């Protein structure tokens, strides 16, 4: 008897936003009507967003991809014998042979797209829980060594060495410690946390288990933004699955280690992605930024030592512990070790997620992967690192992608989001938006951010209106200095980055 045919249709926000649920339902109906021995699997997305919805059919030990599929074109595809990987204009060949995917260094995302995110069998058959299993064997001290040896730095944006953070929490003596996962992925142009949580949520759970075991914490929190309703559903289901199968709770897999995770949903505040504002929010309060010190590693959630890590940081750990930190450290350049999940967004022909070792240039990503702009026009500006990141002109596109190289040109890699604008962009409008966004999202605790952002919008308006232009440009420079030097957190402290870069590289737009 022939093996059951599996058809993969992503259950992932981008694919669903373009009709994946309808496509999955229609294929299901087709299977039923024709009484076929086939089943629809809802996988995560491979991250080739421009091809979504990407439908795959298992055929002769390969997965053959079709995309972008729309509900409207599905009848035609089924008639072209989709279920036997038939010929069609949308047929892309074997998924893993698509150059966009083939030329990546998939470490953290190695199962994303491949597996059914809510199948424990799929997860384990592809290396899942190997990290935590080894962690239980080697013990906390050796885990800390592996993480330090990997050179992993915080992927949320700040790039702080994860090993040092974990060691600080491990060394702190307290009756309670916490792991707080920052899943408040608010930067425009970023979606890697979401893709990971929707496509392989058990990896995040595994990373949090290892973190908890390594530092002596028995409770974890995931702070997920409310703008991700589908992620909430999938991660919630994964947490239930882990609990039901003894991977969360008391005496996990006979290790004697107790750990559970509570999912908290944010409420539409950007600043809650800042770690101390997030901790306030997790405590049920308004997301006002805290003074540092004390460091959250010593006095964090509810005043207890807390590991605050981004989703990708935690999700990178299982493979590091499973294979050994030196394998991760072998990738990358300088002090940027391992891989970063870059996200190509905005006006690009081929948007999506590209996990690569640090060190390639921005131009390589934009040409080899993104393939230029969606509009077909020239690239004029590229914003890297979210709304607090600098705008890069063409002349800076050869900057290598590593933390230090970006700092050297007044930029930041941040969470790896890359937003492309074509030659129709008005950079004065973008600079104004940076101030406007800061005014909307400022927590209000410190004056440079709360007041500075409002005044900043006004000053930019006067510059553009040619009202006392030179004096107002100087004033804006002063205001930016004050915000950088005097703000409590990156919200006010880095809002000037996109503004200064816009003025420096695109002065002609400010007349």
């Amino acid at each position, binding site marked *: 008897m022939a093996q059951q045919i599996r058809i993969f249709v992503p259950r992932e*926000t*981008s694919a*669903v*936003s*373009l009709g994946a649920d309808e496509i999955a339902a229609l294929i299901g109906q087709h299977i039923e009507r024709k009484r076929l021995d086939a089943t629809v699997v809802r996988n995560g997305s491979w991250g080739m*967003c*421009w091809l*979504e919805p990407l439908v795959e059919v298992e055929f002769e030990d390969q997965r053959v991809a079709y995309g972008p599929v729309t509900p409207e074109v599905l009848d035609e595809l089924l008639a072209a014998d989709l279920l036997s990987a038939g010929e069609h204009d949308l047929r892309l060949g074997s998924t893993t042979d698509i150059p966009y995917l083939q030329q990546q260094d998939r470490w953290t995302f190695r199962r994303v797209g491949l597996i059914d995110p809510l199948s424990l069998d799929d997860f384990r058959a592809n290396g899942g829980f190997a990290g935590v299993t080894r962690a239980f064997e080697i013990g906390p001290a050796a885990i800390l060594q592996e993480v330090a040896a990997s050179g992993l730095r915080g992927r949320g944006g700040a790039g702080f060495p994860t090993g040092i953070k974990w060691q600080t929490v491990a060394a702190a003596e307290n009756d309670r410690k916490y792991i707080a996962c920052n899943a408040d*992925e*608010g*930067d*425009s*142009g*970023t*979606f890697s946390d*979401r893709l990971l949580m929707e496509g392989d949520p058990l990896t995040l759970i595994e990373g949090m288990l290892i973190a908890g075991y390594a530092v002596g914490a028995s409770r974890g929190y995931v702070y997920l933004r*409310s*703008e*991700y*309703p*589908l992620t909430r559903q999938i991660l919630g289901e994964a947490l239930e699955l882990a609990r039901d199968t003894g991977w969360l709770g008391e005496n996990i897999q006979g290790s004697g280690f107790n750990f559970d995770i509570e999912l*908290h*949903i*944010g*409420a*539409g*505040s*950007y600043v809650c992605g800042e770690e101390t504002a997030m901790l306030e*929010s*997790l*405590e*049920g*309060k*308004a*997301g006002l930024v805290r003074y540092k010190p004390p460091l959250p590693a010593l006095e964090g959630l*509810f005043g207890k030592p807390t590991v605050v890590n981004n989703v990708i940081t935690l999700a990178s750990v299982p493979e590091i512990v499973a294979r050994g930190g030196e394998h991760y450290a072998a990738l990358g350049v300088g002090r940027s070790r391992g891989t970063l999940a870059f*996200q*190509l*967004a*905005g*006006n*690009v022909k081929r*948007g*999506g*997620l590209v996990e690569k070792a640090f060190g390639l240039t921005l131009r390589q990503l934009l040409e080899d992967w993104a393939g230029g702009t*969606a509009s077909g026009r020239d690239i004029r500006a590229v*914003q890297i690192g979210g*709304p607090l990141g600098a705008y890069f002109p063409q002349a800076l596109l050869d900057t290598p992608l590593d933390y230090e190289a970006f700092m050297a040109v007044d930029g930041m890699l941040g969470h790896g*989001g890359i*937003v*492309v*604008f*074509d030659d129709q*962009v008005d950079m004065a409008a*973008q600079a104004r*938006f940076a101030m406007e*966004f800061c005014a*909307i*999202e400022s*927590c209000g605790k410190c004056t440079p951010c709360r007041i500075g952002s409002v005044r900043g919008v006004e000053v930019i308006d006067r510059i553009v209106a040619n009202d006392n232009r030179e004096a107002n440009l100087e004033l804006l420079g002063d205001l930016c200095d004050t915000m950088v030097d005097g703000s409590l957190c990156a919200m006010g402290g880095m809002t000037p980055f996109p503004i200064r870069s816009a003025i420096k590289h695109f002065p002609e737009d400010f007349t």
Partner: protein
Amino acid sequence: MPEQYDSAVASELIERFDARPEMLLQILHAFAERFTHICEESILKLAAELNLSRAEVHGVVSFYHDFRREPAGKRVVRICQAEACQSMGSRELTAHAEKTLGIGLNATTADGETTLEPVYCLGNCACSPAMMVDGRVYGRVNNERFDTILDPAET
């Protein structure tokens, strides 16, 4: 459909979170899903049951964009205003939406049908512009697609 505030239902929702004060945001989300808006009575109720001051509860409700003090329209349309969507024409899409609905952002149509709001990133940045209608995300939204999504005859 959201209903009017009801004290017994509110108690039940609070109990679901064991009346833990750190769960205030989560309880407010439960209120927001169940009731038309966060009314004055719900603030009093939460303060009493979580042992918080009214000012503390009010402070949280007013800090976060997700919690409304007034009922929304029957349908809530949120258009992303962040950079990735801007680069693909979200400003033009927003102008089209405002013109079609006859209202600006953060407003509800006179017939109470539709509320139009900004949102800053739905994480659909490689399929921009993006919008959300009643919690469902749509990608690659141009003016034409916007009309189709909103016109009940088409959907």
